[in-house]
């Protein structure tokens, strides 16, 4: 019944709109008989072009003013982060300048050369010098960005195994994450989904007879020591997932049937990040929003929202099914001592089996 009523209302709204447009349509009879733009249309739309240019600038400024503190282009928490962020900022500046200038020229020309009866346009079909100029300038700018980008990319993706990185496996399944550490020997035991044995609580399919696997540690909260390179080995047991750690400027897909990898060195502990004034402002802002929302919820007899405290997160960033929107794992970066103390409390793989 509601459905029927809604459809009827939607129909009425559509008819009303139709009629309003029709009135608008009929009201112009006599003002202009031809449906081809005349001088008046050219003039009005020419001015609107300039107004639209102002609108584009306004929305750009407003976005930077209101949303400029959202982007993750500062306060990265990994050693490669600042390099990546400055590449981002340089690219943004280049884009910003080109955008401002070309949009100005486009809309200004549309305004300046608006048609008038009797005027003749300039017959100007070709100019090889101009073509060469605006082929070569993008070539130079892009060459600079490409070279800078490739150096950054190679720095990030080339993982030096001599640094003795901490090896951690990130294991994805619909819809949660697990992490596996190599244990005292820092070597991950062999694993394959065919070895999964739920009865024995071997949920990651680790080879039970592999000597390297005995001291492996499987956890649901990722702890990382500050300052030590970490090499992540990603696996997935069912569909594609993507391990996205935005604060560390890190992301890699988890692909069933193969092991992918990504490495970085955490450079800021969770505690230090919480003391960062920028982050404190952000948290304060979020909590103001949550308090407002809670008032509304409480008024409706629902529970209030918990206050937010900053934590690093690992998110799934590849569509993976119904609960894709809630597939996350907390990451805690801490000092080596805190990390060692935490690790000591964890059960090894051999002890965790039923």
């Amino acid at each position, binding site marked *: 019944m509601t459905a029927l009523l809604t459809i009827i209302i939607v129909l009425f709204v559509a008819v009303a709109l139709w009629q309003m447009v029709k009135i608008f349509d009929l009201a112009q009879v006599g003002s202009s008989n031809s449906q081809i733009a005349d001088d008046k249309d050219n003039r009005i739309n020419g001015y609107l072009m300039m107004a639209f240019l102002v609108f584009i600038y306004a929305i750009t400024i407003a976005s930077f003013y209101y949303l400029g503190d959202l982007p993750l282009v500062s306060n990265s928490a990994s050693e490669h982060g600042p390099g990546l962020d400055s590449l*981002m900022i340089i690219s943004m500046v280049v884009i910003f300048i080109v955008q401002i200038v070309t949009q100005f020229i486009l809309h200004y020309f549309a305004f300046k050369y608006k048609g008038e009866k009797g005027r003749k346009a300039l017959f100007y079909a070709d100019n090889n010098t101009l073509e060469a100029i605006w082929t070569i300038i993008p070539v130079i700018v*892009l060459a600079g960005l490409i070279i800078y980008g490739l150096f950054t990319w190679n720095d990030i993706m080339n993982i030096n195994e001599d640094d003795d990185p901490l090896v951690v496996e990130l294991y994805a399944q619909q819809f949660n994450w697990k992490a596996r550490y190599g244990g005292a020997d820092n070597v991950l035991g062999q694993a394959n989904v065919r070895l999964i044995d739920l009865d024995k609580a071997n949920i990651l399919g680790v080879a039970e007879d592999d000597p390297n696997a005995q001291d492996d540690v499987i956890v649901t909260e990722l702890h990382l020591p500050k300052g030590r390179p970490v090499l992540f080995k990603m696996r997935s047991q069912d569909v*594609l997932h993507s391990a996205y750690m935005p604060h560390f400027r890190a992301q890699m897909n988890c692909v069933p049937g193969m092991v992918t990898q990504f490495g970085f060195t955490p450079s800021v502990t969770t505690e230090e990040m919480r003391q960062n004034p920028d982050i404190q402002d952000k948290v304060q802002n*979020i909590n103001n929003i949550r308090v407002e929302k809670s008032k509304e919820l409480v008024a409706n007899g629902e529970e209030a929202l918990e206050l937010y405290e900053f934590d690093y997160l690992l998110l799934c960033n*590849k*569509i993976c099914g119904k609960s894709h929107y809630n597939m996350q794992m907390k990451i805690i970066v801490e000092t080596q001592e805190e990390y060692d103390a935490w690790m000591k409390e964890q059960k090894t793989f051999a002890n965790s089996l039923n």
Partner: protein
Amino acid sequence: MSATAETHVHDDHDVHHHKETFVTKYIFSQDHKMIAKQYLITGVIIMGIIGIFMSLMIRMQIAWPEKSNVIFETFLGKWAPEGVMDADIYLALVTIHGTIMVFFVLTAGLSGTFSNLLIPLQIGARDMASGFLNMISYWLFFVSCVIMILSFFVEAGPAAAGWTIYPPLSALPMAQGGSGMGMTLWLVSMAIFIASSLLGSLNYIVTVINLRTKGMSMTRLPLTIWAFFVTAIIGVISFPVLLSAALLLIMDRSFGTSFFLSDIFIQGEVLHYQGGSPVLFEHLFWFLGHPEVYIVLLPALGITSEIIATNSRKPIFGYRAMVASILAIAFLSTIVWGHHMFISGMNPFLGSVFTFTTLLIAIPSAVKAFNYITTLWKGNLQMNPAMLFSIGLVSTFITGGLTGIILGDSALDINVHDTYFVVAHFHLVMGISALYGVFAGVYHWFPRMFGRMMNKNLGYLHFWVTAVCAYGVFFPMHFIGMAGLPRRYYTNSNFPLFDDTTNTQLVITMFALVGGLIQLVFLYNFFSSIFYGKKAPQNPWRSNTLEWTAPVKHMHGNWPGAIPHVYRWSYDYSKPGHDEDFVPQNIPMKEGEEELQH
């Protein structure tokens, strides 16, 4: 409604003398102009309404997550218990919205309408090389539309693995409800769609190569035809690869092969698949998927070239550079697909290679944008609605294209991959730009299609509100993407981290709703003008191309007498030595007149 003898023409050769019935004229028509209208109504209008309506539902869910809504209750039925949208149907809407807009509206709708209408008329041909194949192509398209829509009515819901349908999610019914019957229908629909697209493309290529009228050399072709021609070539090269990927995926799903699957444990059991790779599917998909962006964009740019030149009363600037950049874009588009896969687990060295080729493609794109701007310079701009949409296209093409410099850079892509930044980028550069191309084309060639004019003031209203809303929706979206918000999240309520994006999301949804509703003005203008529009003059925009020399009334063969011959290129606007500010292509050169070296 059967056509009478007066619609028949008498010519020395090549004219169909069969009797037309309602069925052969309007339904199983082999006439390119009627097929163009069929594509326009099915592909652009009907599928467009469905696709845009889905996007509005998606936006409503994002702005008011998990809130009850009568619109959801009405249109989603069991998928919105008590009016609250289900997470599965959210993903399905995202998937089918993408599929419909990319393939049905902007590939088949755009090329189907304007390639069919303009190729024979602008090159001076009686019809397509094969009217019969053209008809089959449309009807296959129609069938694929019907199957895609029917997939909404199967038990477990339509395909919901994203329009890129990456396996294993799309391959395993136990991974997601939509990967059952819904995905089968998606694959069947796409297979038929690809057959339709290939038939159409082959027809376009053959027609352009063989049926040009006397004097219409390749260097005198209007840029529209160049764009349609090259688009068809890209389609013929890349669509079969998607067909093979779809067939292999069907094999994996139904016949137990392991092309894309390996080592899978799901719902408590190990599946038998061994040795395949999902990354292989990504390669096959994007080998079509990236050229697809240009299949969508090039026809829109071709339409823009024609409209900007005509309405500026100036030759298009740098005709040769424009043709060269179309060809360069076409070539480069086939070697950049890997930029969708920087973090897919492929070798990082490949990431470097694809970064290089991807940023190269910015160069011909920049040349095109600068040439459009220079065409405006010292012109005499006639601000018809089609012209406004063309200028709007250049604007969104620049805004959206520039952020491609960030996404095409493998290092920067790490942190914005699959976030709202990507959504903002591709919607501006290919979604909105190509839609503007469609609108520009409809406003410009409506008199040619229906013999009547569309209302210009409604056109102005339509353009300005749409233009403001397009920026209002997609510009702020870059910032929430840079804040790390992943796309395709049903709700962000589990991430307090993103609470500071909620107000922005609300503003975006408001712009989206207004922008969606204003399209009703276009629909009104379109349908009422078909019946009540002012009768159009023969050549309303005072254009040079051949389609304006043919009579508007429905007839086979396009020209009642002999096909006009061509003596010049199509951009002799405001040429010195002529009284009028345009010289149609079929006007012979004056004595001593120089044909411009272009």
